[in-house]
């Protein structure tokens, strides 16, 4: 109720924004819990995302330990998994699969989709385009609370007796449809699907809001070609989300019907646990198509916002305009378009017609072109810059490094011929963790370090930031670089232990090394957590524009307020990258500064 009243109140203050703070008192509940202020919602997304991140990364450390020291007993296993799933501290094989599954789900959807895109779209869209708030603050609030509900459902599935979903994050049926096939496909899977349906609703509400806001609420002078690249990235990401998430919803619903109501959309001719099931005429390949129709755009939903953040942070810290602004926009558009027609490269070995494989190879390798353009543009942005090595800048450069390293191996996986032998091996694991996992995480960290003062009004400690960056970046390469080699040796992913294949005995030392890097890297995320949470309370008070940035969010007062700006919304007179523009004394010219008399626009 209060939220509705609040929303009404809010639409009202578009007219009376300047006296806004006088006529309206927030209670704890309207300010911190059912807030409709985009900045608070952004923080809610971020903190929920971080908590889910801790769970997701923690799980990966557990199963990495199992891989390095297979079937050994660990106290941590007994503690976290309990006697049911880890009798005598030895992780059980189905629990291993459950951990892998939930790790993937949490990291992809809850951390990198909601935690990254949700946080920064909410924070930056209104602030950078010069709007008082999202088009609908109420829908925005609903979107967050649906997200929160979905995380609660997902986490609660961890406590189901037979274990949570364990058919891999891709939940291919029939494994995900039949509790006889694996325990996790019982109640655990039902909760997984429910959680995902709620999550999709949340994501759609959020995305629609972002699109409407960007289209309608730009301030005077903020043409589409004066938008910061962050906004372009969020805008296009939201559009891909709107196009592809509903398809996952239908896949999930059909799977739910196969599971609960005896339909045969994805199942056919199955004999399991001594009996023939009645399913007839369905196809698991159909599910794969539906899943990857979302699943592939999803990786771009994850990486595009990171690209946007990195572009913005790099320009600011290089004190240079981003190189090739229009080429960057074009490549975002090209990537977004291509991302919707390449899903089949996950399915070269699925049994679909090999001719389709040829088509998807073609489209997939095309996507390397806009990606290469982006990488070259970032590198050129650094050239002859005056690089300010803030932690956000380090993470941005780290992003470009891992994006290139991980992206290049995509040329192998995207080529159907080469995919034959590396499909579903550790080579794939190395590739996608570097190119979308680590890269997107770096983008997220860069964003957090850069916009921390904007979010919390305090500075985050830079030295802890440096420690965090360097240990993370060395460990990230330490974990995923050796994985290429064990993948090329033919080691399949999702194996509980490799000890049943003497063929792979010589890879064990590498697995131990990977796990050690993972443990150290994981442990050092505590530095970040400490820095993040302690700086909220004890950080140095932030000045209004600590990084001397040009975009509008830094023209708003440090103290958060509904409506973002006291008085009028700033107008925009120039593009967002006037750093070190000849003819100006300062090395940056904010977007709201009018052009001087006779000043030329120097970019195209």
């Amino acid at each position, binding site marked *: 109720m209060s939220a509705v009243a609040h929303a009404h109140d809010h639409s009202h203050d578009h007219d009376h924004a300047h006296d806004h703070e006088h006529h309206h008192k927030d209670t704890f509940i309207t300010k911190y819990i059912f807030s409709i202020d985009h900045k608070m919602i952004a923080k809610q997304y971020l903190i929920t995302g971080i908590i889910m991140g801790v769970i997701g990364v923690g799980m990966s450390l557990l199963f990495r330990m199992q891989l390095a020291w297979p079937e050994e007993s660990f106290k941590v296993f007994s503690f976290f998994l309990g006697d049911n799933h880890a009798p005598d501290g030895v992780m059980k094989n189905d629990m291993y699969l459950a951990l892998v599954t939930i790790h993937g789900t949490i990291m992809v959807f809850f951390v990198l989709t909601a935690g990254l895109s949700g946080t920064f779209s909410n924070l930056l869209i209104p602030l950078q385009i010069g709007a008082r708030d999202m088009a609908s603050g109420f829908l925005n609030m609903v979107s967050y609370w649906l997200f929160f509900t979905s995380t609660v459902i997902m986490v609660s599935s961890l406590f189901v007796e037979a274990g949570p979903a364990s058919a891999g994050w891709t939940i291919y049926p029939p494994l995900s449809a039949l509790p006889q096939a*694996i325990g996790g496909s019982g109640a655990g899977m039902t909760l997984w699907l429910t959680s995902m349906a709620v999550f999709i609703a949340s994501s759609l509400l959020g995305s629609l809001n972002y699109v409407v806001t960007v289209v309608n609420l730009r301030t005077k002078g903020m043409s589409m070609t004066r938008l910061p690249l962050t906004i372009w990235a969020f805008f296009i990401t939201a559009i891909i989300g709107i196009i592809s998430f509903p398809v996952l919803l239908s896949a999930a619903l059909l799977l739910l019907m196969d599971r609960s109501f005896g339909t045969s959309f994805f199942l056919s001719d199955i004999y399991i646990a001594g*009996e023939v099931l009645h399913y007839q005429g369905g196809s698991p390949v159909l599910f794969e198509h539906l899943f990857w129709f979302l699943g592939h755009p999803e990786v771009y939903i994850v990486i595009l916002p990171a690209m946007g953040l990195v572009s913005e942070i790099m320009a600011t810290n290089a004190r240079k305009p981003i190189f090739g602004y229009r*080429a960057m926009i074009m490549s975002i558009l090209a990537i977004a378009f291509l991302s919707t027609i390449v899903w089949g490269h996950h399915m070269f070995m699925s049994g679909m017609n090999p001719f389709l494989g040829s088509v998807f190879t073609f489209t997939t390798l095309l996507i390397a072109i806009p990606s290469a353009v982006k990488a070259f543009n970032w590198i050129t942005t650094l050239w002859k810059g*005056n*690089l300010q090595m803030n932690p956000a800048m380090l993470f941005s450069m780290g992003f470009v490094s891992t994006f290139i390293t991980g992206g290049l191996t995509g040329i192998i996986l995207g080529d159907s011929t080469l995919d*034959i032998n590396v499909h579903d091996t550790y080579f794939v694991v190395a590739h996608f963790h570097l190119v979308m996992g680590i890269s997107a995480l770096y983008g997220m960290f860069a964003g957090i370090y850069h916009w921390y003062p904007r979010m919390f009004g305090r500075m985050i400690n*830079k030295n802890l930031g440096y420690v965090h960056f360097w240990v993370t970046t060395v460990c990230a*390469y330490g974990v995923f670089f050796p994985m290429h080699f064990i993948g090329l040796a033919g080691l399949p992913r999702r194996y509980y232990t490799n000890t049943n294949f003497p*063929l792979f005995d010589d890879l064990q030392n590498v697995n131990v090394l990977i796990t050690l890097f993972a443990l150290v890297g994981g442990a*050092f995320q505590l530095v970040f957590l400490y820095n993040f949470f302690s700086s909220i309370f004890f950080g140095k008070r932030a000045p209004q524009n600590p990084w001397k940035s040009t975009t509008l969010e830094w023209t708003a007062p440090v103290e958060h307020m509904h409506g973002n700006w006291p008085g009028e919304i700033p107008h925009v007179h120039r593009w967002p990258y006037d750093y070190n523009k000849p003819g100006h004394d300062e090395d940056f010219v904010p977007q709201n500064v009018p052009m001087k008399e006779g000043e030329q626009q120097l970019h195209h």
Partner: protein
Amino acid sequence: MTTLLVIVILVLLSIALWQLTKIFDLTQAGKVAQGNSQVANDTDNNIQGYLMFGFLAFIYIFTIYGLIKWGHFVLGTPASAHGAQVDNLMNITWVLIFTVQTITQGLLHWFAFKYRGKEGQKALYFADNDKLEFVWSVIPAVVLAGLILYGLYAWTNIMFVDEDEDVLVVEIYGKQFSWEARYAGEDNVLGKANVRYIEGVNTLGVDLADPHAQDDKVVNELHLPKGKKVLFKIRSQDVLHSVYLPHFRAQMNAVPGMVTQFAFEPIYTTAEMRDMDHMRKKVHDINEIRAKKSAELIAKGQPGLDPYTFDYLLLCNKICGASHYNMQMKVVVDEPEDFKTWLEAKETLVAAVKASQEKPADETADATPMVKDSAKPAAPAADSSAVKKSATQAVKK
């Protein structure tokens, strides 16, 4: 023990770094008046710039170290005819990847070092350049076009099997958590099969009434003749599996409800492969590791490990349940004569079913066969009533 060690190392490392940052903080506070603005100053820029350069060295050295230390893990000489083409394309791609990786990482980190911020340094206002954009769009486009063409050519060669090609037809059948294989026999045509026919010895659900099924042979160990193209017809009984034969550069999912296929020609027998230099070295290395581990196990009073001899393997490579990690079948490539002798010695499925029916007295004789059989479009002819009975019973369930 190892865990304890790891934890101790972690704790010590964190303490060391924590102290380091503290010292760092303190020195900075003294040096600059408004030292802890938390915005990078020239000292930071300098240190981080050098570290970036150091990191470039780390990437290069780690790459070279990996290639030397782990390079030999990469699967060696392919054992199939099309494998050479796959590996060739792979090598071309690797050359490209290493070149681009070395150059771009070099530029990225070198620029980070070279242009690290200094008080008074002015960045160049360089917003765009159409020529550059054009060059670095066209070069990748041309290079990728080459790769795509080669890739598609190879893909078409590998994946499409001509109708009239002379091939040996073999069925691979996956189920939780084992593999079986069925040879098509003299007529080289597999008998029809469906899970609804599964009964006793007939674990593959072969329709025993199908004339083509009469000479089919089912085995648990896959033998292939050297120098003959084999067409694999792949089925699954329950969930998705994937037939993965890494040494043959072959993979295809097993999908319940449909038959998928993959074809290749084995070119080295198991004996020949064992005799190759890289394989001898690999087996030697593995046996050293196993001997050491074995000694440890025996010291602990557990049974030791057998030494390893190389065999081709078929692995499951699609998550299929709790024991996915141990779903394998041995593959043997023989000289054609040896293969023929081996296969001839195997009993046909029909004979095996007959034998199993004769042995135990017909226990299910009193079960009345159901007449209506709606779920199965083509009912088997009545020459094997026991099978039919089982099929209908299964459907009833």
